[in-house]
């Protein structure tokens, strides 16, 4: 669950401030390819990612292009019984096709076609705009998404929603999108992770000859974005929501993950009536520990106090046994989560996108095994010195209508 949270909460997207993503490989025309051979069944999961921030002023453009392509790609993959997923993380624009390994070349061609999107029709554009708007609204309207967005905006201002902003959405015309894509794409930003009954040479060969980058990316008329940091509308909340997030950039990621898990366990023990989510946010923007509590109204004071003292209380009781057990549990959850080719490709791919190192997943897994309580103590003490980002959403008060 914790590892899943680590993986699945890294879904915020880069917007448009001038931030570089994980470094592209200089002057490389072929994609970086990582293969995890899993010959159990004749399936392969192919995860193609393009490391990219949306250009300044065009937040959400990468995800918009994904929406425009999605139904066509999905239908083509379905012709061989496969499945397609799109994902926009803070690090990359991602397409994952899972299907028969014997269809490797066919599936690779479909994914490669996503790298040269055509100018959309007006119908398709309107439909994709509506889908993106729904994503934006759902993130703001519900307390769960709202709390995370507000914490993320305080810690990582450039890391705004994958769905962009109201303002940037007005700039996605059918003529602008090809120019935006030319600013996002070049072959050296592409990584491919393949998991399944395939060999490295075959995957390399299937993904050779990627579309070329635009020789001279066209200048876009807007060069800055405006990001609304405040609430657009009151979120829906029947419980109170209290959250705190601590920057943890530069610290050992495995230790941050374990510290996050231990903080979550501690808060659950202290607050049995409260829903506790503890998440390790880890993108190219940096790392953070996020704690989000959904609290019944009578317990709000108690929850605020517990959240405020969680770091110091955990520091007081920290011991090697708890650290080792937490690390073992996370390793076990990593294995369980990545038991299908699609999930394994997702896990390996997120590490590759972030670190640019094909062995990053193995290194993280090994680091968990060698952690001791001093490593975790360092993380907690670091966080203790910081002023955390905070969010609080009061529960809605329902008044019966007077006739």
């Amino acid at each position, binding site marked *: 669950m914790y590892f899943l949270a680590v993986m699945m909460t890294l879904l915020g997207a880069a917007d448009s401030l001038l931030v570089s993503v994980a470094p592209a490989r200089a002057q490389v025309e072929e994609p970086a390819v990582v293969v*995890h*051979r*899993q*010959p*159990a*069944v*004749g*399936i392969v999961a192919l995860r193609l990612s393009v490391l990219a921030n949306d250009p300044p002023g065009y937040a959400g453009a990468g995800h918009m292009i994904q929406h425009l392509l999605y139904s066509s790609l999905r239908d083509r993959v*379905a*012709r*061989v*019984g*496969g*499945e397609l997923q799109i994902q926009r993380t803070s690090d990359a624009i991602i397409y994952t096709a*899972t*299907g*028969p390994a014997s*269809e490797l070349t066919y599936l690779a061609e479909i994914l490669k076609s996503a790298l040269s999107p055509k100018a959309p029709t007006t119908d398709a554009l309107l439909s994709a705009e509506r889908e993106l708007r729904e994503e934006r609204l759902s993130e703001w309207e519900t307390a769960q998404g709202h709390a995370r967005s507000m914490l993320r905006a305080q810690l990582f201002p450039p890391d705004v929603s994958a769905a962009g902003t109201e303002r940037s959405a007005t700039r996605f015309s059918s003529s602008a999108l090809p120019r935006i894509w030319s600013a996002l794409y070049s072959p050296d930003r592409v990584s491919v992770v393949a998991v399944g009954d395939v060999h490295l040479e075959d995957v390399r060969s299937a993904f050779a000859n990627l579309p070329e980058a635009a020789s001279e990316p066209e200048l876009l008329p807007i060069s800055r974005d405006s990001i609304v940091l405040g609430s657009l509308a009151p979120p829906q909340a029947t419980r109170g929501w209290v959250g705190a997030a601590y920057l943890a950039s530069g610290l050992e990621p495995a230790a941050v993950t374990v510290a996050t898990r231990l903080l979550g366990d501690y808060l659950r023990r202290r607050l049995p009536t409260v829903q506790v989510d503890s998440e390790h946010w880890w993108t190219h923007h940096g790392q953070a520990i996020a704690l989000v509590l959904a609290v019944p109204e009578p317990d709000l004071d108690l929850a605020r106090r517990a959240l405020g003292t969680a770091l110091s209380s955990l520091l007081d009781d920290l011991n090697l046994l708890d650290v080792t057990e937490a690390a*073992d*549990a996370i*390793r*076990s*959850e990593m*294995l*369980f989560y*990545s*038991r*299908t*080719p*699609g999930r*394994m490709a997702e896990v390996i791919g997120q590490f590759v996108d972030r670190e640019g190192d094909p062995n990053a997943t193995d290194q993280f897994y090994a680091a968990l095994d060698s952690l001791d309580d001093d490593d975790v103590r360092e993380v907690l003490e670091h966080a203790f010195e910081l002023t955390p980002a905070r969010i609080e959403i009061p529960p809605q008060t329902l008044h019966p209508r007077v006739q």
Partner: protein
Amino acid sequence: MKAVALAAILLAQSFGSDSHAQARVGVLSEPGTSVVAAELLFSVGPGDEDEYQSGLTYLAARSVVAPIEPLLDSIGAHLNVLPEKDAISFSLVSAPDVWEEATGILSTALFRDPPDSLTVIRERASIAAELQGRSANPADAATRAIDRAFFGPDHPWGRPTVGTPESVRRLQFGEVESFLRENFVSSRTFAAAVGPLDPASATAHLESLLGSAQGAPLDYPPFEPAERSIQAAYNSITTWVTASFIFPEDADEEAMRFIGYLAAAELSFSPLQRSIYNVESEVVTRVGSGEIRLQIVVPPEESEAWEERVAGVLTRLLDSPMLPDVYAGHLRRYAGEQLMALAAPEDRAHAAARRLLVHGQVDGHIPGLEGLTQERVRQAAASLATPTIVVLGPTLDD
């Protein structure tokens, strides 16, 4: 011709157990898979319950494993209980270094630990609440109705597999205790495991869990499908049309699976069939026989027309041969979907355990489809008897 086919099915059902040289343990070694999925499958189900005890198998299974869930959780093992008509399965997914410990904990609970009354009471309340919550679900109602029609109202498989809220609430601790002692025994157990395993040592471990008892004969009572259309009034805004085709144990299983796929494709949404909401197909093989089950969801005012379409779906497949490239396209997609259905190791372990139960052996996951010609499929389709159909939805009076 069809009467002969049905007679053959009934004969096979009656004497199905005699025709098996039954292996009870299967291991598939899968380097590269991150976990081990193991399944203990018991040939126990509604056929072992008395009429008034519907749901006893499932309650017994849940009660016996509930106390070990925290222990399994502590070593990162995930347990799931899957009830079916002819068997109940315990599926365990765990890290390779703890799978033997996890299966050991499970087998001890199943074969040695007596249930405790508090757990039985808690699980009984929990199952009854789950079933109560699903009682208004038309999908469940459609399944109950087709089971009753296909297997017969007096056949144990015609009853709901996990019982009803009322039947479960009636079950007593003593019934659970004696049911476990009599039926959850190693002689009725099949064990399968997939993952990064050494086949010899994994087989030895699973055999040690089962002990030295000989496999008990599989004894499932025969049934006779209604083979006609049955209307069932139900207060919903959609109509559910379900058809079941029986096929004999020695039928061309792969062709039958492909027929299920083709029938669903024929009935699915298209520019000419825009009113259909959902189509599903399932092919189940059991000892003695198998079943192709199709289910569609349509607007109530079109239910008669859709009932005819479902009844005639095989005739249309037989009457109009496909162009070779169209057929090849279907086969290509079907092959991919078959593989995708086995993407998770627990699904592969379950398929292996089912093959042990039904075929007495595990011989890999996916049968070859190379020889699945259009002629072979047509021959298999022609051997199918008239389907049993249930139309469940609002009537004109509603």
